[in-house]
């Protein structure tokens, strides 16, 4: 059993990391296609020898799509000088990106990506760590991410980096409260803090035909969650902590792969938030009308399926939903301009937070009388 868990953990870890690396490619290409451009396609590998023609034939579409750019990025990052500011704190300066990356990655352990896979007498839960307070665990880990940001600014011995980290921290805290408050509605409705239980509860049908997904029972909560979650990932329109080239942010004093790790953390957080949004609001691994034994449509039609096909469909559905959310976040990132800092704070404290509180009250009232 422990071996299976380790295998699942390694598989999820590898998939998340490779998808995060692919995110740099998606970012380039999606922005290009959205803006009627072609996008980066100059990192190519072509073998010069005549006998390598079949290999070149395989490499050609990869070259044309620019899929070697993540590798080129990684090589560039590793080759660069790793600079630690002379009066900075060496230890904390190195620790900060590690903390950021670690706390972004450990969250994936609690995400259920399928129900159960039954092989003979073995029942494998498709979740790395079946924690019964997974929601709390995830939010604890997400909040710990602020430590990396704070430490990065603190240990750099640069006032600008420090101010940037303070800005980032206040933004992340402001939006984390909203994020937590939007989840409360979901937790109240499904009556559990266990993500697997929440997803299972979303398999029921409303009015006999509508899947009981979070987006249908908590539509306002869904939009609040998306808005707050985007702020958590520190990407446009909430990218004041880093601000690409214009604003001096918390990782000003970072270079080489340490900078790359902060960059990577952003992408991993995006995937994390996409997983969370899919799990809480789009029914996680639920396929509409798919039960444990196959499809059971509301018009009494039944399609029986073997168990492993069901499990496979569930995992595929989860991956599809996650990819959809990643696409959506990327589209939003390349559509909107950046908020001003006072607008950001006003939106967080005066806009999203009160609405999320009202959402809790309304949900509680409705649940009480239902």
């Amino acid at each position, binding site marked *: 059993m422990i071996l299976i868990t380790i295998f699942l953990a390694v598989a999820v870890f590898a998939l998340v990391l490779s998808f995060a690396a692919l995110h740099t490619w998606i970012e380039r290409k*999606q922005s290009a*296609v959205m803006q009627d*451009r072609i996008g980066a396609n100059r990192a190519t590998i072509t073998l010069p020898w005549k006998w390598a023609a079949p290999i070149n034939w395989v490499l050609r579409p990869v070259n044309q799509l620019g899929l070697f750019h993540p590798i080129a990025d990684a090589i560039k990052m590793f080759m660069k000088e790793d600079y630690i500011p002379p009066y900075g704190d060496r230890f904390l300066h190195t620790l900060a990106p590690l903390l950021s990356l670690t706390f972004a990655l450990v969250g994936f352990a609690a995400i259920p990506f399928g129900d159960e896979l039954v092989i003979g007498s073995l029942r494998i839960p498709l979740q790395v760590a079946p924690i019964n307070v997974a929601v709390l665990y995830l939010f604890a880990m997400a909040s710990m991410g602020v430590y990396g940001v704070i430490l990065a600014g603190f240990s750099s011995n640069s006032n600008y980096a420090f101010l940037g980290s303070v800005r980032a921290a206040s933004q992340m805290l402001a939006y984390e409260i909203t994020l937590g408050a939007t989840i409360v509605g979901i937790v109240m409705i499904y009556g559990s803090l266990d993500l697997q239980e929440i997803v299972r509860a979303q398999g029921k049908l409303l009015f006999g035909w509508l899947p009981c997904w979070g987006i249908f029972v908590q539509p306002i909560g869904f939009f609040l969650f998306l808005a707050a979650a985007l702020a958590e990932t520190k990407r446009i329109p909430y990218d004041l902590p880093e601000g690409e080239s214009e604003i001096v942010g918390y990782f000003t004093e970072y270079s080489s792969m340490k900078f790359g790790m902060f960059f990577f953390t952003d992408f991993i957080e995006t995937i994390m938030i996409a997983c969370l949004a899919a799990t809480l609001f789009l029914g996680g691994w639920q396929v509409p009308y798919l039960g444990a034994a196959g499809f059971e449509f509301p018009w009494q039609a039944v399609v029986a399926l073997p168990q492993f096909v069901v499990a496979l469909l569930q995992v595929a559905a989860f991956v599809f939903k996650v990819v959809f959310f990643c696409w959506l976040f990327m589209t939003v990132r390349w559509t909107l301009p950046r908020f001003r800092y006072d607008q950001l704070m006003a939106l967080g404290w005066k*806009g999203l937070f009160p609405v999320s509180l009202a959402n809790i009250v309304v949900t509680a009232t409705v649940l009480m009388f239902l």
Partner: protein
Amino acid sequence: MTIKTKILERPTMGFLQKIYLPEILRGVWITSRHFWKNLFFHFLHWLGVFRAIQAAVTIMYPESRRPVTPRSRTRHRLTKRMDGSPRCVACMMCETICPARCIYIVAGEHPDPTIEKQALNFTIDLGKCVYCGFCVEACPEDAIHMDTKILEIAAYSRERMVLDMNELLNPHLGVRGGPEHTSCPRIEGIRGNPEYTRLAKS
């Protein structure tokens, strides 16, 4: 006549704009429409159909180029007579009119006694040239043109920006791929250029 002023009302945000969401959805709708349309046509291009419909405005620069209009002033060339000798009679008109003073002509005796002069050397310093086209206008013999469509004029030193008569008479000499694929004003290719190797080493 008095100046009329038109006072423009500052646009105020209504409720729907203030809550951001409908406007954001509108923006996401526009960008994602572009995204899916372009992706669809990229896919069709990959299949080899509908290539006439553009999915991207990008011109893949070194491989394909934007067409150069015939009247645009590009790198100079010296024209030749039917027998291949340069048309230039070393009248010094172009050297005189040149506002950047980048043309240097060395005049000499022509072997034929009925012809007064010929240019022994004709040098243009492209590092000084402002591409005004006055030399072309001034030439009474139609001996200098600016129609080679060579736009990439770059070198690793100022000396290499100077073109001598041979290069001006044969503008595509040593330029990779002939008139459509030009990259370097000099006869040497970029790899064989000692300047390049020196810079690459340092």
